[in-house]
């Protein structure tokens, strides 16, 4: 069935709300406004204000409330408008949600799901556009997911809710209108990366909003006689090293595409693992295509120039091919 990424998220949320009375949705503008990206439109009417809760503009407060509810036996889904705003809740996430199991000697778990939008491409400038998935992927004790396909948008929520520990789901703002097939029958896994296009010459390793760009680059490369494989990380913590290494062992070349800033990025972590675990399979130094290290510009042409684009991926892939 053809559907959109947004519709797939809605279907997953509705299913969760219908199936489990412990599940509720909380966040800024999720109720009366219907969600900043219209993901929960109509849910207030359908499920009522007890389960679709508009929160005040206090990420620290409502993420903390979500943690408390999870400790109390609920299965909260907390929506944070953008990853930039989530920084206000970092204390709750790092010092409380991710640490409680450890601090309590295994007595408490925090079955909390936090959804947040990330990424640029909509001219929302330097306070609404960043790609900080990497900061969360750094934290032990949580899982970090980046659905980049309609199938994952539909399927990742259920296993995230079933997980006894906090799970953060990043929805790239550029993906909401993405159309794709969803033949949803069972929940997808939240442990493995997936090859979205097989190829033999170079592995394009990416996640989230950069996946469509990498796939587009792979098509362009095919026209130049370069057979690119595209690996979608899907799960940013814990990283599925095995799939990454398996792809690089096959192609012997890697280009990591990451919308985050280059220094200390997820791309850096992926490259480090490739070099640690597949050094003797490499036929060229691994390369990275990341965002320019600037606050995201507002002007469209500057924003486009700051982000990874298919053309940049093509150039990087050709360089590692020596072409």
């Amino acid at each position, binding site marked *: 069935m053809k559907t959109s990424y947004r519709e797939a998220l809605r279907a997953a949320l509705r299913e969760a709300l219908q199936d489990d009375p412990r599940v509720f949705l909380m966040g800024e503008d999720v109720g009366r406004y219907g969600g900043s990206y219209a993901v929960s439109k109509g849910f207030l009417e359908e499920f009522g204000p007890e389960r679709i809760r508009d929160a005040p503009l206090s990420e620290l407060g409502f993420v903390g409330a979500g943690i408390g509810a999870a400790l109390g036996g609920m299965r909260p889904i907390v929506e944070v408008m953008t990853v930039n705003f989530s920084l206000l809740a970092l204390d709750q996430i790092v010092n409380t949600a991710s640490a409680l199991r450890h601090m309590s000697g295994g007595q408490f778990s925090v079955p909390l799901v936090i959804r947040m939008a990330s990424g640029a491409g909509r001219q929302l400038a330097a306070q609404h556009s960043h790609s900080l998935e990497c900061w969360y992927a750094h934290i032990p004790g949580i899982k970090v997911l980046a659905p980049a396909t309609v199938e994952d948008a539909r399927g990742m929520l259920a296993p995230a809710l079933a997980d006894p520990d906090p799970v953060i789901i990043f929805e790239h703002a550029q993906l909401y209108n993405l159309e794709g097939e969803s033949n949803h029958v069972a929940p997808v896994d939240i442990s493995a990366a997936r090859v979205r296009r097989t190829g033999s010459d170079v592995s394009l390793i990416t996640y989230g909003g950069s996946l469509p760009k990498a796939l587009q680059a792979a098509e362009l490369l095919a026209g130049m006689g370069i057979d690119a494989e595209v690996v979608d990380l899907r799960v940013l913590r814990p990283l599925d090293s095995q799939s990454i290494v398996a792809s690089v062992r096959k192609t012997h070349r890697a280009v990591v595409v990451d919308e985050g800033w280059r220094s200390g990025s997820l791309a850096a972590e992926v490259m480090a693992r490739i070099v640690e675990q597949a050094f*003797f399979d490499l036929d060229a*130094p691994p390369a990275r295509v990341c965002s320019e290290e600037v606050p995201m510009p507002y002007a469209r042409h500057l924003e486009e120039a700051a982000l990874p684009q298919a053309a940049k991926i093509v150039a990087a892939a050709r360089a590692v091919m020596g072409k």
Partner: protein
Amino acid sequence: MIDFKLPSLGADMDEGTLLEWLVQPGDEVKRGQVVAIVDTSKTAVDVEIWQAGKVHELIVRPGEKIPVGSVLATLLEPGESVPPTRQAPVVQTIKTEARRRVSPAARKEAETLGVDISLLAGTGPDAAVTLEDVRRAATVKPPVQAPVVASTASAAIDRNAEMRKAIGAAMSRSKREIPHYYLSETIPLRQAGAWLAEQNARRPVTTRLLMAVLQLKAVALATRKFPEMNGFWQDGGFKPAPAAHLGVAIALRQGGLLAPAIHNVAEKTLDQLMSDLTDLVKRVRAGTLRSSEMSDPTLTVTNLGEQGVDAVFGVIYPPQVALVGFGKVRERPWTEAGEVHAIPLVVASLAADHRVSDGHRGALFLAEIHELLQHPERL
């Protein structure tokens, strides 16, 4: 800033050893000037530069072995000033021997397959040796234990071994990649022989012409009508050459051969060609060839007449697409209008690349050479 790189001096060369710099930092160089002497596996070659400028920095030191494409020196373009960052301590920079770039995968594979990486040219990023380079090399030649001898006493032996290896690599590639076809034609040389005898009777010994020169000129002129014999097979297609720079196969006394070019043969007089040929043979044996002579041949002509064979069916030197051979000129019976005459004959042969031409055109090409040699006075 201009990067002066080590040119490829033929399909069988993938690295060279810098023997000597003929310029110093600060020297002005002209287009075509010989600036360095580089030892290939076959011979020492005077390397020319094709851009004018002022020598800024000599990057490779004499004695260093470098792959084709390496930057040997940097030059300032006319009017360019020294970039401030690079100006600093040019004097005492200690240059470490450039480490060969080999991808980890290629290194591992080379070990498995027994390929000597030091003999490979890299095609990867920054001229690194890649997996594919190693695999290609492994299919070309059986793993040979490369003689890594550096003593001067065995230098001559090394040179022979290296040359054998280089010829082997180029000829293997030729036979592997080029679908050869072969044709031959017996050409009567009565007029040419008589004309030559008459000419030479009037000349001092030093300027006497050889039949080989007539043959070269005839081949060059014939390529005007048959451009598909003269040029290169590159990037999956044929690129005709604008002029006939004929590679002349010259055997070396110590064994092996070289086929440097005489440029623009079709435009030169027989006298010019004779002096070019004499000069070339002398310089091949003295080891003072120029880089352009090594890299430019567009069609090779080989003449094994001196050795007494009737005909030669050659192996094309890639990326060229044809090779013309001549055997010994012999007096033989020849029938004309029902009468048998004893006249000098030569067998001309053609080895050509079937990707570029067919036997029909090849036959017409040989016929054109035949025809041209019947009118020596017009050559």
